[in-house]
């Protein structure tokens, strides 16, 4: 029973999706950051309630059954790092788009009527 975690995951996902649906690249980037956090939390929450458990560090005197599940934690740790890798790539990509296309807005980027200054001219 972890209602608060479920609510948190739901809210984070909702806001992340909302941001990703915007046309501003910066908002989309923010949405991606939130989405990555939300997904990590969802993954972690699948290990069940941590109440009454200890961290997954094996020390004498603690039964292994009374510890938190280490597997989701290991997975999430990997996910955090990869999420950061992708994020940094997105940041650079966004910078490049801004340099080349002079816009930070997806709607403007794909607007066919826009005259592209410095862009490809047919």
């Amino acid at each position: 029973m972890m209602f608060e975690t479920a609510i948190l995951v739901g809210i984070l996902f909702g806001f992340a999706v909302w941001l990703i649906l915007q046309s501003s690249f910066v908002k989309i980037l923010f949405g991606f950051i939130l989405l990555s956090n939300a997904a990590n939390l969802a993954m972690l929450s699948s290990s069940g309630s941590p109440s009454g458990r200890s961290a997954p560090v094996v020390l004498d005197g603690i039964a292994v059954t009374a510890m938190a599940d280490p597997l989701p934690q290991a997975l999430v740790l990997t996910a955090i790092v990869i999420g950061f890798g992708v994020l940094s790539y997105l940041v650079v990509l966004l910078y490049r788009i801004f340099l080349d296309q002079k816009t930070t807005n997806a709607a403007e980027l794909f607007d066919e009527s826009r005259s592209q200054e410095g862009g490809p001219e047919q």
Partner: protein
Amino acid sequence: MGTALLIAIFLPFAALVILPLAGRVLGPRVGWLALVFPVISAGIIINLALGTESFGQQTVAYTWVPVLGVELSFLVDGLSLFYGLVVSVMGVLITFYAANYLDGHYEFHGRFYAYLMLFMAAMLGTVFANHLVLLFIFWELTGISSFLLIGFLHGEKKSRYGARMALLVTGITGLVLMAGLLLLGIVAGEFSMAALLTAPPTDVPVGLLGGAFLLVAIGSFGKSAQFPFHFWLPNAMAAPTPVSAYLHSATMVKLGVFMVARVYPIFVDLEWWTPLLVAIGFLTMALAAVLAILSHDLKAILAYSTVSQLGFLIGFYGMGGLGGTHYDLLHVVNHVFFKGCLFMVVGIVDHATHTRDLRQLGGLGRRMPLLAVIALLSAASMAGLPGTLGFLSKEYMLKDAFYFAEAGADWRAWYPLALIVLASVLKVAFSIRLFWGIFGGAASPAVKEHFHHPGLLIQLPPLLLAACCLVFGFAPGAIAAFSETLAVGGLHLPGAPEIKLWHGVTRELITSMAIVAAGAVIFALGAATAWRWARIPLPLQFDTGFEAGVERLPKAALNLSRFLRDNKPLDYIPVIGLFLVVFLGGYFAYHWERFEVFDDFSFQEGFHYLRSFVVLLILLAVIGVVALPRWTTQLLSISIVGFLVTFYFVLFRAPDLAMTQILVESATLLLVLLLLSRFPRSAELGERRSPFSPLRKAVNLIVAVGIGGCVGLFSFLTSRQKVDDFAGLWFLERTVPDAKGTNAVNTILVDFRGLDTLFEIAVLVIAVLGAIGLLMRYRRSRQEYAEGALGASGFSVKGVRRRQ
């Protein structure tokens, strides 16, 4: 026998490799090399035919695809041997003719003969195939090689259109045939043609058998250019003339006729057999004869006359009674002789004068006397004048039609006879016109200008065929013996009546004479008016309509995809999101009872106070992301969320996660802040206005709320159960003994799942390389953009031009 037959069928496939290579060296002379293949096949099949017995049936089987029960099995009986003979012997003549016909003006000789041999192999495979699936495969292979040959002169638009039309019509009807053959095989529980012929399926549902027959009939109509598919054959005449003579008169288009004859014993009991085949066959016969008299192009006339003859053959099998038929082979072989010959003659005329239009030809009789004699004999056979094989064919055609009319119940039984007479009259008329138009009268200006004399060798094959028309016309006993030897059980009646040249003055003879007279009158009328009225009326130009349909189809598809598609990627994301919401939400709603979501709900257990407090803080921060105006403040809110999540990890007893998250969060903050600092204020201000309509905003809201709700519910459901034997237990137990480490998360990452971590690092390396590539690309100038995507690619420092 088995090996020899396999060689006869599959050896020509070897030509596919040999001839194109040899063609590069030999050029036009490769035709003489190609002649080897049909000679070998013809020799083997003649040998087989000599050793065959009347009503005999043998099968040769090899395993091919045992899983599907498909065998490489061949059926050798009278019918398959007859068509095998036609295909291979005509193959010899045509290759000989083509070797003379395709001179240096043509290109890709090797390829041409390779296609021709492919076609011959496919044809032999089709007529000898025993397994129904094998039959279909070879059947479609003939269509493909026909497509390649029609489109051989692909530089011409007519060739491309004709090839496409032939492929579409025969290909689609071929698929119908496949459905019919499969249905037949499933209904009868037997895929072997030999077994089906010896024991036709009896106690099976008539509806299913009738369905199979209908599908097979449509497939045959398509291949044999029967109404309403008759239009593709004249368009196939864009092929070089040897191809027209071989594929589109003598062999491939007879496959439909062959198929009808092949399945005759299986389907003849059906109520629909006679009405369908007679109605379509004779309608085609008469219609094509009308179209032939309205045409001016030599090959078009011959094409329509071929369609007409094919219609007769289909109708002929339709008229056949329950016991079987007589002398179908007479009609087929007659057509092979005179039509193959006429096509070759036309090819020579075309070659000699560079025109095929009857209105521009004339007076060639004096210049090419041998060819004129050849053409006279074959045209006489087509018209059915006494002394030729065509006369005999027409006699027996009329005899069968009279018999059918008398045996029939009402006036509808006279339908075949009436249409045969009509078609024959027209046939006489255009036979005379064909001969007289080319060879009679004075030399036309076009002839005077272009004429050059054809060689003697090229006239040999048509001479041979014309001689056959004459010799067999006077010696019908040979044809009778031939038919008797190649008779097939179920299709032919034993003890056929003798074929005689002179029956006395019978009604057939009188009708025949009347037909010739009427045909001559029509020719005289046409010649008197110089055939000015001869034009195919628009409603009968099926090919134009078909072509327009084919042209319009891609346009319709384009319009449809333009209607469905959007050029902006942004518009796709809500669609995908909406689908997810509907899919997941629908799933949850449908199975709501099963999940028992709120069954054991209690606030004490449901909410943990400290975690709930953190959740509240995160919620506030997230609202800040959406509500705050500036990018930087929004970013700070995002960062607050990240750091609060770190604390949440701590509450989840995950110290390693918290450590990683705090580092990554700091780096993210710095990195994105750096990015935002590069954007001008104007960019941020420009984005205050949302470009979306209220409707789009509502859709976005629905998608966001829907996905949030679904994932939240999913997360709740997965975390509800408190299990004692979780997946990570194994790692906790093994971490100290195996990995010598106490922290299970660390040992999983670096010991137990070390390779995963390696790949994770690889992902980071790829991201870094990508980022470097993006950063080091220098800005391209207008001019460089104008040079296109390949102009001045830039792995270079900004501002430094690598190329002027």
